[in-house]
């Protein structure tokens, strides 16, 4: 916030402040005029931001300050140069092949990761410090050796082809792979930097990372797939023996060239083999693969167990069903038996009833003195009446017998008995089961 420092002094207060609080209101502000602000400039944009988000000044200050603080953190640290040690300063510029160009420019912690912009800035910084004219002015020593080193480093690092050649053989950027015996708990911390550094030679970008124990199987497989099919741009021209450039000895020149070519090819093959071994080592040490296998096995086992459980369940179900069926059948049979017994009983009861009814009929005829008017009935009458009653009995079924027997029950007068019997005979005649003539007495 902008604070204007003025030289003015404020009014002295009256000795007696008449109001209770330290602040006393007298008037309101005058009515404002409404005008159109020009939507232009950083301060307007800040105003618009406050107004649109309904922030007060202090809120907005805080939010903007927080954002700016974040930006500062994100930004590249401005100071990238490193001081050089005495060994570096005393280097012979002619021996540039063995010089660490990144260290000369003071960016050895960036190495192959250094951007062109960083290299440019670092170079500028070194030049400002080591320019021979400056040295001459300061100490009178006319030594521009280190300056030559700087220029050589710059020449190599700013030329994309030369920089690749140098990066190819820049062993300081290599990270030693952990030995097979190393029993570190965290193999990821050991291997990730190795592959990050090897990945710099990849033609394909992005390079998959070694990852950590949370990597999925697909990621890990992709990783090994990538590294077993690694496409490297690494070249070894930088280590070439100098080709004599005098025109006199052409054979010698060609010989050296051939030798260089062979050496390059050899180194390339060695490098490929080396990388392969590194990947093999990594694969051997990679506990994730074991984990994945185990998981797979577990998965398979789980499937098997599930299958077996399913089979067992099915078998149990079948058994249960069979038991239920058997039980049902048994019950049915029992029911059938019971009903049969009942029927027999009913039948017997009916038979008994019929017997009883027949007896009633016969008895009724006897009670009615065989329908003979007075005195003892002659035997032929008795025989005929009994024959008629027997006939009627045979012609009537059990129910009819029952009805007739009930009608007869309690009757003593012979005419009434006769009427009932005649009635039932007529009923059976009308049904057509007997003929009138069959009855000898009762119908007369």
């Amino acid at each position, binding site marked *: 916030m902008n604070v204007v420092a*003025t030289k003015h002094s404020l009014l002295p207060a009256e000795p007696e402040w008449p109001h209770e609080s330290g*602040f006393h209101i007298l008037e309101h502000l005058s009515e404002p*005029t409404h*005008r159109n602000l020009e939507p232009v400039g950083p301060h307007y944009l800040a105003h618009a931001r406050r107004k649109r988000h309904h922030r007060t000044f202090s809120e907005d200050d805080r939010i903007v300050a927080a954002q700016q603080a974040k930006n500062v953190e994100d930004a590249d640290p401005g100071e990238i140069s490193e001081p050089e040690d005495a060994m570096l300063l005393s280097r012979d510029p002619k021996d540039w092949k063995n010089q660490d160009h990144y260290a000369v420019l003071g960016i050895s912690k960036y190495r192959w990761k250094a951007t062109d912009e960083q290299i440019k800035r670092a170079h500028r910084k070194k030049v400002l410090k080591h320019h021979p004219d400056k040295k001459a002015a300061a100490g009178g020593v006319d030594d521009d050796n280190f300056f030559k080193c700087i220029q050589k480093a710059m020449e190599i690092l700013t030329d994309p082809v030369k920089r690749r050649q140098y990066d190819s053989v820049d062993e300081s950027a290599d990270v030693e792979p952990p030995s097979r015996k190393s029993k570190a708990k965290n193999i990821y911390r050991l291997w990730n930097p190795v592959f990050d550094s090897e990945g710099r030679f990849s033609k394909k970008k992005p390079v998959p990372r070694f990852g950590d124990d949370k990597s999925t199987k697909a990621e890990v497989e992709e990783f090994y797939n990538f590294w077993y099919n690694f496409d490297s741009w690494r070249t070894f021209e930088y280590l070439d023996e100098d080709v004599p450039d005098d025109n006199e000895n052409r054979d010698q020149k060609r010989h050296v060239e051939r030798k260089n070519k062979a050496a390059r090819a050899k180194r390339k093959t060695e490098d490929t083999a080396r990388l392969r071994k590194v990947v093999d080592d990594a694969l051997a040490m990679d506990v994730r693969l074991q984990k994945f296998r185990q998981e797979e096995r577990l998965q398979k086992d789980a499937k098997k167990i599930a299958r077996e459980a399913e089979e067992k369940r099915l078998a149990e179900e079948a058994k249960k069903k069979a038991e239920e069926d058997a039980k049902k059948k048994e019950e049915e049979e029992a029911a059938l038996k019971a009903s049969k017994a009942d029927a027999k009983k009913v039948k017997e009861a009916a038979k008994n009833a019929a017997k009883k009814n027949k007896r009633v009929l016969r008895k009724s005829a006897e009670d009615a003195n065989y329908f003979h008017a007075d005195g003892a009935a002659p035997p032929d009458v008795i025989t005929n009446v009994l024959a008629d009653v027997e006939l009627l009995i045979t012609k009537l079924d059990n129910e009819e017998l029952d009805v007739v027997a009930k009608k007869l029950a309690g009757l003593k007068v012979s005419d009434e008995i006769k009427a009932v019997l005649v009635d039932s005979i007529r009923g059976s005649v009308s049904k057509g089961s007997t003929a009138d003539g069959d009855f000898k007495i009762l119908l007369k």
Partner: protein
Amino acid sequence: MSDTEEPQQKTVIGIAFGNSNSSIAFTSPDGKAEVIANEEGDRQIPSVLSYVGDEEYHGAQAKSHLVRNPKTTVAYFRDFLGKSFADIDPTNAHSSAHPIQHDTGVAFSVEEKEGAEPSTLTVSEITTRHIKRLQESAADFLGKPIDGCVITVPTDFSDAQRRILSEASKACGLEVLQIIQEPVASLLAYTAREDTSHPADKTVLVLDIGGTRTDAAVIASRGGMFTLLATQHDYELGGRQFDDVLVDHFSKEFIKKHKTDPRENERSLAKLRLECEATKKTLSLSTSAQISIESLAGGFDFHSTVNRLRFDLLSKKLADQVVGLVESVVKKAGMDLSDINEVILAGGSSHIPKLASRIQQLFPSTTAVQAPATNPNALNPSELSARGAAIQASLIAEFEAEDIEQSTHPAVTVTPHLAKPIGVVIHSPEGDEGKAEDKVYVFLDAETAVPARRTATFVGTNVGGDVLIRIVEAKKESVDITPPKEVKEKVADEDDEDDDDDDEEEEDEKIIKRVTEVEKVIAEAVLKDVKKGQKVEVMLNVAGDLTLTLTARVVGGKGGVRGTVPGRA
């Protein structure tokens, strides 16, 4: 090797689309606006398109065709944009392709191809082609395609005209992020140059003397926010009229020698006018200039010289007109000339030294006049709008279209502005006891958009003890009662202060000079036990509903006093 990609940034430019000349500017990564030269090296690219043979010429090349092929050369078309044929003033286009009536407004009938039927080109079409050329120049210069632009237009451009301009630009694939007003862009160009993140409050008059017209605007700049208070236009005053002065002058000279009037022949006139323009420009830089035209009229060559004094005398009437325009716009804003803290001269004709000195004479010496002739640090007046546009473009480059739309919506732009200055009564440093009570330190000047907040520190009291903070609404001093002597004294006093304290900010001097009187006391607060020499920090915050909040404390001390005056509503 290092194929790490930079975060994709939008390439945006500012375009000053003028009736006579256009310019394009971009903002460099370190935040400085720079004007781009086109392929021919021109930073002021004539808004002219010419169709000769099968070729389309643009800029300076097209302008030179005004002499030979006036009928197929389209110039001065900007002000026709979006207007109906009945509303335009075709005077300026008299010596180029003539505007004709068209369904969409105004058009030009131009033979685009050799021997072909003349085709009808609407003003929008011409504008599209012109902007396309500007876009190409910018893309060539920056080496990457242009994603968007901010275009400046005069304040009297209607909404419809702005919309048509925006569409015309879109037609050639250049998205218009925002259309801003020329005087505001010029002011932004100057404000952005100041290093401070809190620009001083001031009232600025932007005088834009263009090729064919002159526009004046009074703008209140409060805490870096701009409010247009008044505008005034003169459509018959501009560089062209200054050219005509020279044309008349040289014609008379030519007649004297050769008995022929070059103004009678259109071609001779065009030739003479073109050369007079160049001579006029030279006169702004050196005290005398030559003119030489081969075969001007009647087969006679013409060579002559003119000095600046002669030119100033000849153009006195025009300078008077400019002064009149300035006076009228200040009056329209309801202000006095002494209320203007700064005058910004924009437009090509502002290079004329006499104009700048006339303006400087008009205003009190405390008013800064930003023109090359009066201030060696002044920006190039021709480039102001383009620079302002470029700055604005870089500010909103990362915004979404919706964000820009919302930020420029009237709901956000229309804001209550303070009717009267708000300040605190101070003890007069001169020790002039009689007037001491009347002095007001202005925190928030009139026309400050609210919500606004200002903070200042004061020397408590001379003796120590309780301090009274009296918040007042002030009224501006009347100029007549300020004797010139007092101004002088103050300047001297200020120099002393500067010696004492180098950190003194610019704001101080203006405030000291502005003697304002108490009109209405709003509130009083008392701050207890301020020891001698202790500083008191006072913050006034006026919210959007005119609620005034005072926060006062002793610097480095605890506690303090706080109070709120609620708004009326």
